[in-house]
């Protein structure tokens, strides 16, 4: 048998049909659904008298629109958001799919809920009408975002029409330095490859620095594969993966667990597998980074200065100038002198318990800089409960952070959590696009530890100075 990559193996195991021209019909093991990209798909089913083929493999949770303030039980104020969440309530009920409503403690960001509940398992195909579905690749699952037409296609047929992507290996060798985290890895990789560098590829992340990461950290890395242009990023499962999955509500038990485990242990890229592209970074060379512009590829170590447009070439010259203007930055200013107004810790990139622990470690006994708005939005109700149990919530509240309920919140500001024009935010989310966190809002992406450090000083800060 010819050697295969992990991606090849999962692909082959899910092939329902292959047409002569190479178009494949791929079986989908898990379909995650949220309120924003699904209403038109359910409507399509109704209009054509179709049903959900595999409701037991379909999981829905509202996350993008939900308020995260403590009084949210009183309902959603914005009428459109309300309609969208109510539509999901109704669709989940009508079509009999698994559902975690806003009132359920297990509710949270779909990409946090899936793994937490054991829906996401190694070797699976996982899709969702959301580009950050790549997150689930951390389990060695082939997971990617789809559009609403494809959501409807998966609901109706439990399959997806696909062409195979190319294989790309991203290896992070060696150890990370203190203060450097999974977020710094994933941002640095995008800084290296650019936001289109992964287009057409499925990335497998490997190397010692990746193996050393916890499952939470691996999810952070895979989450941003899409920001590098790759539809999916994955990491071969290992003992840490199995340990994370074991005992989760929807993970297999008993003999099925043993059978699953036996298969999962075959899920790795063969030594002599073919890679269409290879990128290698040394773990030791990665610094705590921040973004300065309006594309996730605009990444620099916190010790650097704001660049100037003339540092770039081609179409990037204009893009960089536009970014600098939008971000209100002057070339040559040390990044660590850039003052911020707001700190947002949360999102499917960094809203897990480990992220909150990392932030709490920096914030313990410290205060948020006067005049700063700071909020922490846990990724799920269960993350929130655990953080309270571990005493992290007390640290945040004492420091002056708002301690919110679970949801996407200011990651894309579809709910009331938004930046005002010109407001500058240190954010742990994944996109710094113009207007992403609110019209005119300025976003700097970074790790939770870096965001916590910025909250204390009021400007972008090298977290290593506070350690």
């Amino acid at each position, binding site marked *: 048998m010819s050697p295969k990559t992990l991606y090849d193996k999962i692909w082959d195991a899910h092939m329902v049909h292959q047409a002569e021209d190479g178009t494949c019909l791929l079986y989908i093991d898990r379909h995650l659904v949220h309120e924003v990209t699904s209403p038109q798909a359910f409507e399509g089913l109704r209009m054509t008298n179709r049903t959900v083929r595999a409701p037991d493999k379909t999981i829905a949770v509202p996350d993008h629109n939900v308020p995260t303030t403590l009084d949210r039980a009183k309902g959603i104020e914005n009428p459109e958001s309300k309609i969208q969440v109510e539509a999901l309530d109704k669709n989940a009920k009508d079509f009999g799919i698994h559902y975690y409503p806003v009132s359920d403690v297990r509710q949270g960001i779909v990409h946090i809920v899936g793994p937490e509940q054991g829906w996401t*398992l190694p070797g699976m195909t996982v899709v969702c*009408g959301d580009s950050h579905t790549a997150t689930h690749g951390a389990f060695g699952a082939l997971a990617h975002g789809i559009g609403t037409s494809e959501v409807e296609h998966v609901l109706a047929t439990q399959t997806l029409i696909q062409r195979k992507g190319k294989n790309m290996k991203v290896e992070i060798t060696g150890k990370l330095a203190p203060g450097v985290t999974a977020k710094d890895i994933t941002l640095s990789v995008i800084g290296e490859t650019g936001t*289109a560098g992964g287009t057409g590829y499925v990335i497998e992340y490997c190397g010692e620095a990746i193996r050393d990461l916890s499952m939470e950290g691996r999810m952070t890395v895979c989450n941003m594969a899409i920001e590098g242009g790759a539809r999916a990023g994955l990491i071969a499962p290992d003992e840490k993966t199995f340990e994370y999955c074991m005992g989760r509500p929807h993970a297999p038990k008993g003999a099925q667990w043993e059978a699953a485990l036996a298969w999962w242990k075959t899920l790795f890229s063969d030594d002599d597998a073919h890679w269409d592209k290879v990128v290698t970074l040394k773990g030791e060379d990665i610094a705590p980074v921040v973004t300065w512009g309006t594309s996730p590829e605009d990444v620099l170590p916190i010790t650097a200065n704001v660049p100037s447009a003339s540092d770039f070439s081609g*179409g990037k010259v204009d893009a960089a100038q536009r970014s600098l203007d939008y971000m209100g930055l002057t070339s040559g200013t040390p990044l660590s002198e850039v003052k911020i107004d707001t700190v947002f810790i949360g999102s499917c990139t960094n809203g897990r318990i480990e992220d909150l622990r990392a932030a709490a470690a920096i914030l313990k006994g410290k205060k948020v800089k006067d005049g700063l708005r700071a909020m922490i939005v846990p990724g799920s109700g269960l993350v929130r409960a655990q953080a309270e149990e571990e005493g992290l919530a007390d640290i945040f509240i004492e420091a002056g952070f708002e301690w919110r309920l679970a949801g996407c919140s200011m990651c894309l*500001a579809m709910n009331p959590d938004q930046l005002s024009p010109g407001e500058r935010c240190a954010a742990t989310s994944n996109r710094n696009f113009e207007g992403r966190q609110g019209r005119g809002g300025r976003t700097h992406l970074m790790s939770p530890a870096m965001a916590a450090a910025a909250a204390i000083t009021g400007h972008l800060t090298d977290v290593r100075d506070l350690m």
Partner: protein
Amino acid sequence: MEKFEKLSGIAAPMPMINIDTDMIIPKQFLKTIKRSGLGVNLFDEMRYDADGKEIPDFVLNKPAYRNAEILVAGDNFGCGSSREHAPWAIKDFGIRCVIAPSFADIFYNNCFKNGILPVPLPQDQVDILMEEAQKGANARIEVDLVSQTITTSDGTTIAFEVDAFKKHCLLEGLDDIGLTMEKASAIDAFEGNLSVSRPWV
């Protein structure tokens, strides 16, 4: 789905790289539960000021381009989120073809599901079309999916590639779901095996 065979129209130039889905249709318009009506909000934050007034400099607000049916743009068009609202808005505005050096994967796929033809071309060819588009309403560009060619007003012809299956669906206006349902027995068989090989799924 609406068919796409041939189109002759005005092309709007947007020489920017990394035009992301948040620019194409900002999130406040994702709250709809319908597919239609998003055209007025296409490129909303670039097209209107904070008071909702048109920004005259923005290309689609210029008289020459208000009826553009083709968009010529920079590298990595449609990067960002999976929101199909992006192609819905483009289509609703009246644009049926986007030409760029490269496209983000999910956006590229979403176009085909909505009767929009995305055409990736080498940078130097996009440059030619960008220059052509800058001539305004006098320069109509012709896009022919059957022959896979683009022809400028002065007769320059550029060939493009497109996946055969996607081309077929677009030409015929086919519904993917219907096509896949014809393979129901293959899906049944796969699920039958699955209950033995990976029963935990």
